[in-house]
């Protein structure tokens, strides 16, 4: 077979594939799926693994009430909204008094615009290395700072405000949502902090209904006043839409309970030494109230499940690949049978066997090549968005 016949067979293959474009596209789609699925699983699990391990490595220990250690880890590391038994601010005080390292309290029981509302102390920002790209960290009650991606998505910045989500919309005895003043936007960190709203612990307790201010009679909005008489004020039944900490009322806010009733989701513990970490951990885990977990150990256990699942997907992918190869083989065999008249014509006019073989080989190569290219493109595009996808996992 000469070069002209080689090129010519390519042209014939392309023309044939174009003529039967529906069939060609179907095969390309099958090949693409067979190539892309295992690749995607690899890419996503690799990113998932990387994201989990990076975050776990940067977090020494987690402390919470006794319960599911996976839930505790996913909540405190990734701000996943799971119902966890709480511990109290008094517990935090007790642990912190014993020393051995830095304890960082977290209240993750609320959301703002459906994103995690993380109520914590400045130590959290120190531990994670979070710095404001604009403005300042929350300084006053009712202040908030936004993660970089969240600020970009919601188009919010310093000077704007964000409302916490109302948990009990139809229960008027529950606290209203809180209007938080945005004082800063964090620099991107590449982790879940980019999607969270940060505030101080006391602001979370306002949302718990454990901290409030009394409004002076002369500061009640006139629209709510039905009757004003000396020593007596009659208010309408109209609901107050939301709470807001303002310069006028900030000094009025006060707690209505003791520290033993101020809830926390958990604590991050950064021990001074490995020894102090081990000692506290064994002491807490031996007790009945609290648990201390190493995020790395939990993540390794979690990844073991993921890898087992990935092995299953790999097996499915091999079967899918074999089925696709068999399908291409069958379609080619069927095509040879359907095209027997065309092949006979080619034989009669003297086309050699190699050129006919090249014609079919080109067709198969083009279909596989296009399928692989489509798979590569899909995997490439999805890889670019992999961090967002991992966030969904």
């Amino acid at each position: 077979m000469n070069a002209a016949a080689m090129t010519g067979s390519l042209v014939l293959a392309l023309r044939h594939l174009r003529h039967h474009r529906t069939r060609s596209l179907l095969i390309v789609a099958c090949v693409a799926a067979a190539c892309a699925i295992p690749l995607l699983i690899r890419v996503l699990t690799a990113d998932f693994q990387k994201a989990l391990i990076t975050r776990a490595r940067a977090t020494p220990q987690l402390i919470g009430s006794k319960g599911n250690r996976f839930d505790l880890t996913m909540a405190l590391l990734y701000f996943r909204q799971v119902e966890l038994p709480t511990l109290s601010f008094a517990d935090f005080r007790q642990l912190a008094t014993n020393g051995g390292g830095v304890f960082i309290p977290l209240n993750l029981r609320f959301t703002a615009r459906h994103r995690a509302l993380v109520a914590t102390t400045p130590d959290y920002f120190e531990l994670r290395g979070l710095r404001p790209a604009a403005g300042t960290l929350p300084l006053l009650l009712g202040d908030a700072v936004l993660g970089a991606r969240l600020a970009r998505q919601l188009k919010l910045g310093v000077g704007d405000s964000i409302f916490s989500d109302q948990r009990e919309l139809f229960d008027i005895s529950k606290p209203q949502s809180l209007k938080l003043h945005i004082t800063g936007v964090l620099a991107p960190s590449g982790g879940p902090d980019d999607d969270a709203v940060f505030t101080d612990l006391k602001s979370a307790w306002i949302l718990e209904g454990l901290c409030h201010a009394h409004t002076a009679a002369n500061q009640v909005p006139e629209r709510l006043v039905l009757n004003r008489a000396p020593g007596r004020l009659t208010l309408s039944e109209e609901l107050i839409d939301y709470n807001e900490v303002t310069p006028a009322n900030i000094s009025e806010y006060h707690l209505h309970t003791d520290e033993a009733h101020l809830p926390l989701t958990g604590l991050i513990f950064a021990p001074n030494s490995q020894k102090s970490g081990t000692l506290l951990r064994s002491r807490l885990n031996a007790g009945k109230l609290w648990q201390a977990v190493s995020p790395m150990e939990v993540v390794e256990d979690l990844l073991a499940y993921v890898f087992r699942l990935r092995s299953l997907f790999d097996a499915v992918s091999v079967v899918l690949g074999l089925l696709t190869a068999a399908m291409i083989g069958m379609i080619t065999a069927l095509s040879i049978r359907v095209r027997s008249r065309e092949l006979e014509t080619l034989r009669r006019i003297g086309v050699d066997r190699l050129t006919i073989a090249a014609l079919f080989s080109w067709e198969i190569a083009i279909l596989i090549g296009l399928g692989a290219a489509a798979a590569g493109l899909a995997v490439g595009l999805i890889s670019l968005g992999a961090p967002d996808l991992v966030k969904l996992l």
Partner: protein
Amino acid sequence: MNTGPLIIGREVRFHHGDSFSLHLPELTVQAGERLALIGPSGSGKSTLIDLIAGIHLPATGSLEVLGVDWATLPENRRREIRRRRIGMAFQEFELLDYLSARENILLSRYIGASNESPLTLAQRTEDLARAAGIHQILSRAPARLSQGERQRVALCRALLTRPPLILCDEPTGNLDPQSAAAVLTLLLDQAKRDGAAVIMATHDHGLLARFDRVLDLTRRSPAAE
């Protein structure tokens, strides 16, 4: 340069099972000669075309075509000679449905049947199509052509590389008399211009007057007109 007969056959015998046999004691075709093969269905017209094309080999006897004895050549070599030096046309046209009319004519280029440049072949395609009156439908797919147009495309395909021998197996069999006459005119005129010999199997006795010689296979022996 070979100036002798284009085809020399001696005592050519071919069998297909017990039911069919062909015997040609002698066959000679000169360059540029126009030979018609006639005979009823099953008389061996198509078989003789295939023997001359080297698709089948005689069971006995010798058949020399274009200076070579087919029996001495392997299959791939026979295919190469057929591809490069013999033009073929069929009753059912046998166009490739996924190519346009132009690409069907240019098939020789895609199968490595010609050493001429693509430009030359493209120009030859245009010239042939114009002569055949199909130059305005070259971009159409075969499915959108009439029977007569398809056969003219098939003939242009056979004529593209100016082969010295053109074999046609009842090319007018599916055409109305007017189209058949037009197709035959195209074939014979172009062959004469290129100095090619034409061997055509046909049932249409009305066309025989335009051939130099007629071989009647009814008795399976040559009979000169």
